[in-house]
């Protein structure tokens, strides 16, 4: 009986024993425990409201996020406002991407041909399992047990690090923030700044506990921490024989790939090792070399609020005597062709992963990336994750994502490639609703059906308005309705008062006032 109670308590996050466990763990670690690696990086297992219920309690994280996103937003706005042709650039970015999607098969074939001509080896992966298998077999053939990595969302999406680890290969993340996430056995919570949920003190504690050689720091000054990371990484760069990267874009016309980064770790990985493996989503293609001009202006400004990011690396196949002598490109589908099928939803594939939408999103700001239960959080995650997974069954936690937005529209306005995220959110809500018709209706189906007829007729509204007066009985003399213990209303009245309905609806008042006018 008691066990059952405890179990029930745990399931709704109300078992004090669990809290103390988490507190004890946090005490021991010196930082709030990270999110364990999920089996599927696109579907960690919980719905958005369930995830948010936990993350909202982490007030330190909320503070970290509020501070960091605020900083990036301000920088981004400054750098965008100084460009007179920003709107034209956005339009150009959007059209180039639309054009790409319209001709994707041909462009991919050209791209493959160009990469091959220049000495690269192209592999096609339908899903995560195939991509991982290809990457692993290349690495295994080299007989190494460690690789260095450039920060990449594509490899996060397929869980490559875990796959390799299970097979005895250690993959070292070399991006500072990604390294913090890796050392703290955590998941990224942002697509550009993966450790945005951590502050300096937490980073210091993580480094002291988990970095090779267990360094000790006198302060939590960023410079001191970064120098330690630098020394640690330098050894890895110099010894690694194989590097793994993602790509920000691939140029079909020339077979050129690009990585935009800030720390130079990417440049190290892309030039020092003998073998380079790049995993790239098939939507990252742009048709021609000239298109780079547009994205080089859009991406850094939107991502980090810089005119140009410090390191931008381009490479085409292999070059004798310069850089990696073996280059493998894994082109990843993993649900992207599924997204292509939806005329409205496919706009999500224009995304250049700048994260501007999550930096501005007020939902993301309070709930944090982990609440989204996917490596793609924020507004773009809310439309991309369910589409990549083809999630339409309400039982699938990913179907909660399109509802994780107030439709405030801020994401659409900042998106450098003009993805109308609110429109796609509504579209996906519709798709999910339609896909679940015919089954047992839930409370929402009943409410929406039930109100449809009343709310589409003036006469019925008049009667409803009169009936609303009953609500005045529930209110006290102060004409306020406080907590209502009804299941539907409690979400609202848990934190807000509801004013009592007026004694007269507008309609009735109008009728009285304007009797003469019909």
């Amino acid at each position: 009986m008691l066990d059952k109670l405890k179990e029930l308590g745990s399931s709704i996050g109300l078992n004090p024993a669990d809290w103390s466990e988490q507190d004890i763990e946090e005490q021991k670690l010196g930082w709030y425990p990270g999110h364990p690696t999920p089996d599927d990086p696109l579907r960690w297992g919980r719905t958005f409201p369930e995830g948010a219920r936990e993350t909202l309690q982490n007030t330190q994280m909320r503070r970290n996020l509020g501070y960091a996103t605020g900083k990036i937003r301000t920088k981004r706005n400054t750098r965008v406002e100084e460009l007179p042709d920003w709107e034209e650039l956005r339009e150009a970015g959007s059209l180039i991407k639309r054009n790409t999607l319209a001709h994707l098969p041909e462009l991919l074939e050209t791209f493959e041909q160009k990469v091959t001509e220049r000495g690269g080896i192209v592999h096609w992966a339908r899903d995560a399992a195939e991509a991982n298998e290809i990457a692993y077999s290349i690495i295994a053939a080299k007989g190494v047990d460690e690789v260095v990595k450039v920060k990449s969302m594509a490899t996060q999406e397929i869980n490559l690090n875990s796959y390799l680890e299970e097979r005895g290969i250690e993959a070292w993340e070399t991006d500072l923030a990604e390294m913090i996430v890796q050392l703290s056995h955590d998941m990224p919570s942002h697509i550009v700044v993966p450790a945005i949920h951590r502050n300096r003190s937490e980073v210091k504690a993580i480094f002291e506990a988990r970095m090779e050689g267990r360094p000790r720091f006198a302060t939590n000054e960023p410079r001191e921490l970064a120098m330690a990371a630098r020394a640690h990484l330098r050894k890895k760069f110099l010894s690694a024989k194989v590097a793994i990267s993602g790509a920000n874009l691939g140029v079909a016309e020339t077979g050129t790939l690009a990585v935009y980064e800030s720390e130079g770790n990417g440049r190290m990985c892309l030039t020092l090792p003998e073998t380079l493996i790049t995993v790239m989503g098939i939507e990252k293609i742009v048709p021609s070399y000239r298109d780079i001009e547009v994205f080089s202006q859009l991406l850094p400004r939107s991502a980090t609020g810089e005119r140009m990011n410090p390191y931008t690396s381009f490479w085409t196949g292999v070059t004798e005597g310069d850089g990696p002598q073996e280059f493998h490109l894994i082109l990843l589908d993993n649900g992207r062709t599924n997204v292509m099928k939806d005329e409205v939803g496919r706009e999500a594939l224009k995304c250049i992963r700048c994260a501007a939408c999550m930096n501005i999103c007020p939902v993301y700001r309070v709930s944090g990336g982990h609440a989204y239960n996917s490596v793609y959080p924020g507004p773009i995650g809310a439309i991309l994750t369910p589409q990549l997974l083809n999630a339409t069954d309400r039982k699938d936690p990913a179907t909660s994502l399109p509802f994780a937005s107030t439709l405030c529209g801020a994401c659409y306005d900042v998106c450098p490639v003009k993805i109308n995220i609110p429109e796609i959110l509504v579209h996906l809500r519709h798709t999910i609703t339609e896909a679940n018709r015919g089954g047992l209706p839930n409370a929402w189906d009943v409410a929406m059906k039930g109100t449809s007829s009343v709310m589409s007729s003036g006469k019925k509204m008049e009667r409803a308005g009169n009936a609303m007066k009953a609500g005045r009985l529930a209110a006290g003399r102060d004409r306020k309705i406080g907590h209502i213990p009804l299941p539907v209303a409690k979400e609202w009245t848990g934190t807000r008062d509801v004013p009592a309905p007026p004694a007269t609806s507008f309609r009735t008042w109008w009728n009285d006032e304007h009797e003469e006018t019909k």
Partner: protein
Amino acid sequence: MKIALFSTCLNDVMFPQAAQATVRLLERLGHTVAFPREQACCGQMHVNTGYYPEAMPMIRNYVSTFEPVLDGEWDIIVAPSASCTGAIRTQHAMVARTQGDEELATRAERVAAKTVDLPELLIDVLGQADVGAYFPHRVTYHTTCHSLRVTRVGDKPLQLLNHVDGMDFVPLPDADVCCGFGGTFSLKNADVSAAMMSDKMGNIKATGAEILVAGDYSCLMNIAGGLSRTRSGIRAMHLAEVLAGTRDEPWVAPATNTKVGA
């Protein structure tokens, strides 16, 4: 001018003062206001929650109720709500089209083109930033997301407030950030919604304003609900209520209505 009023369903049954103030303001400015009786709801909540077929009767009803505007019965349609105006302008035709009713979609587009939010009517159509209003209170203004990013009324409400006599206006920090309402979002994601609302309340309280003004009672219902629960003593009012009264004839909502927030 002959102006048809779309009161919106929320104002009709919960916050008649917004529509009453709009009527008073427009009549005071010398216009004729009509209230087509068959009007009901714009369907925004149903569309935004994903229920397109259920929203169709509402869209059809809105279009047929207000279609006479195209024959000159009225010059324009005004709704004292940016989110309803936005839904009419950006969603009606889209939903009708998705549901295979091209004829309704075309009609909806034409009626939507004649539908404006109150600040748009006053500034763009009537060209009147100064409506002669008097409102001697300390006021702050929440811009509301749909007025900024769907109907794009921009700073028109602020232009109007700027001309209000006697008002002590305090800008609201992060005014353009969502209050967390989002229609059914506030129920489906109640925890996140409450967290966002609490951030919003913090900013409002920091202004020291007596009254929070916005152009939409949906957002106001959300924020005022929190302001009331926390006993902040700050009231919420619609922009129309601030603009309705003059020095000689102050506007007071009929006693049958509910004051929000306090």
